[in-house]
C-alpha cells in the first residue's frame, strides 16, 4: 500500500519509539556534557569557536556552555532553553537544572522500556515534584527579621555559589563584594546599577568595590581633570556639525569668500549649540557621539569637562545613576533633568586612566572593578560574580534559605520515597524513579570530586533517615558532614526553580512521540 508523500522533499519524520529514543539520547548527551562542571570540584570546559580567530573561552558556567553549543537535536534544545530561563530567572543553578532533567529522562527511559505509559510517568513525576517542593518548604529557614543573621546567610549563599567557580580561592573576598553590592540595591533586583569593569593585570584579590560609577573614557584635552559638585548633562547629539540631512544637498556659491562665510556660519552654529549646552549651568557634559576638536575647545574654554563617545551602555547607566535624563535638544534648559554627583576625577587602574564619578544621586549604584591575570580569567570571573549577584538579589526578596551540599536533594528524595510507598499503582514506579534522579545530583558532585560516590551516598542516606538531619556531602574533607556547621547554604528560590523547570522540561520531552523535521529553507551558502 503505497502512501502518498505527505511532506516536502528532505523533510523527515520520526515516530513513536524511535522519536522518543532520539529525544532521550539527545537530552542525556547534553546533560552528560555539563555534568562534570557541577559542584565545587567541577571541571571547566574550553569553548573553541570554529569561526575566524578561533577565539577561546574557558568556563564552568552551565548556561554559557549550553548557550554557545550548536545543537540539532530538538530535545537537547529544550534543555538548553531551560538552562537559559534558569539563568534569566535566578541566575544560578543552570547546570543543576540540566543535570536533573537529564537524570529524570534517563529514569523515564528505563520505565518506558518496561512498558509503562509515558503519561503515567508524567503524572507520577508531577506528584513527586509537588511532594518534593512541600518537603523543602517545611525545612526552609527564613531569617528576614534578623538583619545580622540575614547578612550572614547572604554571605554563606554567596560563598556556596562562588565555591564552584574560578573565584573559589578568594571566595570570601568576592562574597563580601557581592553582598555589599547587593545590599546597596536595597531590595531592587535591578542589577544594571552594579557595573562590572574588567581590567587585566594584578590578581583576582586586587578586585574591589567602588561606590560610584566608573566610565572607561578619557577627558578631553585641556579640560579640568577634577570637578566637585558636578552638574552633568548626559546627551546624545551630533557634536561634529549640524548638517542638512538630505542626501546630496549642496550649495552653490560664486566666490571663495562665500565658502568661507558658510564655513564660518557652520562654526557659529556649533558655537551656538555649545553655548546653549553650557547655558544649562553644567560643568560636565557627556555625549554618546563624538565631540570634535572645535566644540571640545569651546568646552575647555568654559571650564566644562566634556566626555565624548561614551557607549550606549555607558550613558544609559550614567543617566540612571546620576539621576539625569538623556537629552538631545538644548532649547529648553528648564525641562532637561541634569545629573548630579559630588566629585568627578580621573583615576588610574592598572595602566589605564578612567573617569570616576563618586557621590552619585542614586545611592544604590556601585562599580565592581575586577582584576585578573588574563582576559580568560576576567571573563570567567565576571560570569561567576554575575551568578552570585543574581542569586543574592533574588534572595534579598525571597529570604528563604536552604542548606547546600546535596542536602535538599536528599530531603526531597526521602519525602518522595515515602510518597512512593503510599501510592498504589504503576505511578509509584515513576515516583521512585524521581527520587533516584534527585539522588543523582549529590552523586555527581561526589563523582566530580573524585570521591567514592556509592559509599558516600549510602552514608548520607543513612544520616537522613534520622529526623531533622543536616547532613550533606563535604567535598573538601571528602566525607559526610553537617552542612549547617560548615555554612553551606543555597537560596530556596534557586532550588525550587531547578526542581520545577527540570520536571517540566522532562515532562515536555516525554510527551513527544513524533519528530517532524522540516525541509531546510534553500539559500545560497554564505559562509
Amino acid at each position: 500500500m503505497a502512501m502518498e508523500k505527505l511532506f516536502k522533499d528532505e523533510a523527515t519524520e520520526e515516530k513513536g519509539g524511535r522519536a522518543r529514543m532520539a529525544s532521550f539520547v539527545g537530552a542525556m548527551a547534553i546533560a552528560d556534557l555539563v555534568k562534570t562542571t557541577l559542584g565545587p570540584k567541577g571541571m571547566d570546559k574550553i569553548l573553541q569557536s570554529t569561526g575566524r580567530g578561533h577565539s577561546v573561552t574557558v568556563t564552568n558556567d552551565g548556561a554559557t556552555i549550553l548557550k554557545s553549543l550548536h545543537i540539532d537535536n530538538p530535545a537537547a534544545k529544550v534543555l538548553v532553553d531551560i538552562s537559559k530561563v534558569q539563568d534569566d530567572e535566578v541566575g544560578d543553578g543552570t547546570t543543576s537544572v540540566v543535570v536533573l532533567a537529564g537524570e529524570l529522562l534517563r529514569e523515564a527511559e528505563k520505565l518506558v522500556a518496561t512498558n509503562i505509559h509515558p503519561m503515567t510517568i508524567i503524572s507520577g513525576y508531577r506528584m513527586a515534584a509537588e511532594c518534593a517542593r512541600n518537603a523543602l518548604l517545611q525545612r526552609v529557614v527564613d531569617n528576614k527579621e534578623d538583619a545580622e543573621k540575614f547578612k550572614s546567610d547572604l554571605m554563606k549563599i554567596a560563598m556556596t555559589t562562588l565555591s564552584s567557580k574560578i573565584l573559589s580561592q578568594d571566595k570570601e573576598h568576592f562574597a563580601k563584594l557581592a553582598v555589599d553590592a547587593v545590599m546597596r540595591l536595597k531590595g531592587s533586583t535591578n542589577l544594571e546599577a552594579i557595573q562590572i569593569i574588567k581590567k587585566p593585570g594584578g590578581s583576582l584579590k586586587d578586585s574591589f568595590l567602588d561606590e560610584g560609577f566608573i566610565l572607561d573614557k578619557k577627558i578631553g584635552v585641556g579640560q579640568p581633570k577634577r570637578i566637585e559638585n558636578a552638574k552633568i548633562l548626559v546627551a546624545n547629539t551630533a557634536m561634529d556639525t549640524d548638517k542638512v540631512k538630505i542626501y546630496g544637498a549642496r550649495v552653490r556659491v560664486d566666490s571663495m569668500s562665500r565658502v568661507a562665510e558658510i564655513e564660518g556660519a557652520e562654526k557659529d552654529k556649533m558655537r551656538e549649540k555649545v553655548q546653549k549646552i553650557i547655558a544649562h549651568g553644567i560643568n560636565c557634559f557627556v555625549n554618546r557621539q563624538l565631540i570634535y576638536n572645535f566644540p571640545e575647545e569651546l568646552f575647555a574654554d568654559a571650564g566644562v569637562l566634556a566626555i565624548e563617545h561614551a557607549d550606549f551602555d555607558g550613558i544609559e547607566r550614567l543617566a540612571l545613576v546620576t539621576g539625569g535624563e538623556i537629552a538631545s535638544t538644548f532649547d529648553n534648559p528648564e525641562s532637561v533633568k541634569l545629573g548630579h554627583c559630588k566629585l568627578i576625577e580621573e583615576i588610574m587602574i592598572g595602566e589605564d586612566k578612567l573617569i570616576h564619578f563618586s557621590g552619585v544621586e542614586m545611592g544604590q549604584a556601585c562599580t565592581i572593578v575586577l582584576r585578573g591575570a588574563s582576559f580568560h580569567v576576567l571573563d570567567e570571573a565576571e560570569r561567576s560574580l554575575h551568578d552570585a549577584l543574581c542569586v543574592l538579589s533574588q534572595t534579598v526578596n525571597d529570604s528563604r534559605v536552604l542548606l547546600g551540599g546535596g542536602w535538599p536533594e536528599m530531603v526531597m528524595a526521602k519525602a518522595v520515597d515515602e510518597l512512593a510507598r503510599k501510592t498504589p499503582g504503576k505511578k509509584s514506579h515513576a515516583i521512585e524513579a524521581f527520587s533516584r534522579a534527585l539522588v543523582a545530583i549529590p552523586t555527581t558532585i561526589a563523582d566530580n570530586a573524585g570521591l567514592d560516590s556509592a559509599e558516600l551516598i549510602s552514608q548520607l542516606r543513612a544520616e537522613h533517615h534520622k529526623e531533622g538531619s543536616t547532613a550533606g556531602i563535604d567535598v573538601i574533607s571528602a566525607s559526610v558532614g553537617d552542612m549547617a556547621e560548615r555554612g553551606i547554604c543555597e537560596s530556596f528560590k534557586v532550588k525550587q526553580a531547578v526542581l520545577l523547570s527540570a520536571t517540566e522540561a522532562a515532562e515536555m520531552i516525554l510527551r513527544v512521540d513524533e519528530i517532524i523535521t522540516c525541509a531546510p529553507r534553500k539559500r545560497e551558502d554564505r559562509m
Partner: protein
Amino acid sequence: MASPAVQAPRSAPSKTESYVDNKRKDDIRRANIVAARAVADAVRTSLGPKGMDKMISTASGEVIITNDGATILNKMEVLQPAAKMLVELSKSQDIVAGDGTTTVVVIAGALLKQCLSLLNSGIHPTVISDSLHKVSLKAVDVLTAMAVPVELSDRDSLIKSASTSLNSKVVSQYSTLLAPLAVDAVLSVVDPAKPDLVDLRDVKIVKKLGGTVDDTELVKGLVFDKKASHSAGGPTRVENAKIAVIQFQISPPKTDIEQSIVVSDYTQMDRILKEERNYILSMIKKIKATGCNVLLIQKSILRDAVTDLSLHYLAKAKILVIKDVERDEIEFITKTLNCLPISNIEHFRAEKLGYADLVEEVSLGDGKIVKITGIKDMGRTTTVLVRGSNQLVIDEAERSLHDALCVVRCLVNKKFLIAGGGAPEIELSRQLGAWAKVLQGMESYCVRSFAEALEVIPYTLAENAGLNPITIVTELRNRHAQGEINAGINVRKGQITNILEENVVQPLLVSTSAISLATECVRMILKIDDIVMVSHLSLFKKERDCLWRLQSFLLRKPPQRGKRVCAYYEKKKYL
C-alpha cells in the same frame, strides 16, 4: 527499605560510564598539557643573559629578531586553546611587570610537566590545583622575605636592575647606556603628588634609522620624526619659540555641506584666486599677531592641512611648520608643552601658546627630525630617541628599552629588589621542599614536585650559558642549603657567586607576579576536562549586530559618497 533497590541500578551504570568519561577527560587534559609545554619549550632557549634570539618571519614577509618572550609568543600563531593560554599568560606578565615574560612561560611549562606525572600517579586534578594555589601563596611569602627594600633616590640600585633586564637582550652591550637612560626617563615622569603611579605613556619612544644604538639619547622635550615643512623656504631653527598646536587647517575653506563654486566668466576666476590668497593671508596675519613662530598642525583627511600657498606665506612670516601631527599625539604634546590645542582661528590667543628655548631641525643619518628643547613649565613627560643601524636593531632596542622602563616602573610601584641569576628560584625550591615535609598527604607530594619544578630556571640559565646544568644546579642547591640565600649563577664567570654583589638584581614584582600568574594559568589548564567546539554562528550573529548598529548609526549621518566604514573611523581620528 527502598535504599538497596535505589542504590543498585544507580551505581552499576555509573561505574562503566565514569570509566569511559574519565578516559576521554584525561586525554583532553594530556593533550592540553603537551601543547602548552611545546609552547614553553619553544621560548626556553631564549632565557637569560646568554639566551639565544629567535628570528620570526611573519605572514607578510616581515622579519623580526627578538629575545623578548612576549613578542615571540605573540607572533606565533598558535591554535590549540591551551597553548593560546600560555601566550596570554606571557601577555599578562607583560602588562603587570613588563619583564620576565619568558620566565613566566618557562615556569608554567615546568609546572605542567610535574602535573603530568602527578596525574599519572592518579592524583585528582583539583587536589593538584589546590596545592598549586598554596604553593603560590607560600612562594610569594618566601620571595618577599628575601627582598631588599630600595629607595627611589638610590639611582644606582635602579640602574642595576634595569641593566639586569637589558643584559639578556640583543642590545646587552649597550646596557651601560640604556639602563641609566631608562631610570632617568621613568623618574622624570613620576609625579611627586602620586609617587606610586607611573604612566609609561608619558615616556615617548621615537625611532630613527641611522647611527648606532650608542647614539640613543634622552631628550628633555619633544622630538618629531618629521622634517619641518620648508618647501617654500621656511625657517628650520627658531629660538625663543612660541609654539601653537592647531587643529584647524590653513587652506582654502571647505564646508561640511557639499559646495561648488560656479564660475561664469574669466574675471571671476581671477577674483577667486585672489580671495583664496586673502583668506589664507588673513589667517596667517592673525597667527603672526600673537607672536607665534612655530606651528604644529594636526593631520586632517578631510582637506589639506596646509597648501603650498599657505606654506609660502608661513615661510614669509618666519613661522616654522610641522604638519601631519597625529591626533593621538596631541594630548602628549600639549601636556609636554604646557599649552592648549587651538581648533579655530578665532580662538588663536597668546595664552594658548607654549614656550620653548629652541626648536630646531636636525639632520640624522638620511632623515631629519625636529627637536623642541628648553620648554618652559614642561609637563612631566620625556622622550627617548632610539637610534640603530638597521630597522631590526631599532625595533629590538625599543622592545628592550620598554622592558627596562617597565622594570623601573615596577620598582616605583613596589620598592623592593631581589637577587637575580636563579637565586630566588633555587631558594624557593629549597624552602618549599622543606615545607612539603611538614605537610601531610597528597598535598605534601604535590608541593614537593612543584618545588623541584622551580629548579628549571637555574637549570635553563646554566644550560643556555653552555655550562653543565647538573653540576651548577647541585652546587647552587648546596650553597643555598648552607644559608647563602643570595648565591646565584654568574653566567659571565661561569660559576656560582653571591649574585647581589655582582649587581644582578631584579624587582620583586617581576618574580612574584611570574610565580602567581604561572600557577594561575596552570591551574586553569588543569581544571579543563573538555574542549567544546562552538559554531561560529553565534559569533557571527554578534558581528552582524554590530554591523547593523554601525549602519544605522551611519544612516543618520551619511558619510560622503564612496567612503567606506573604515574611512569613517579614520575621520574620527583625524578631524
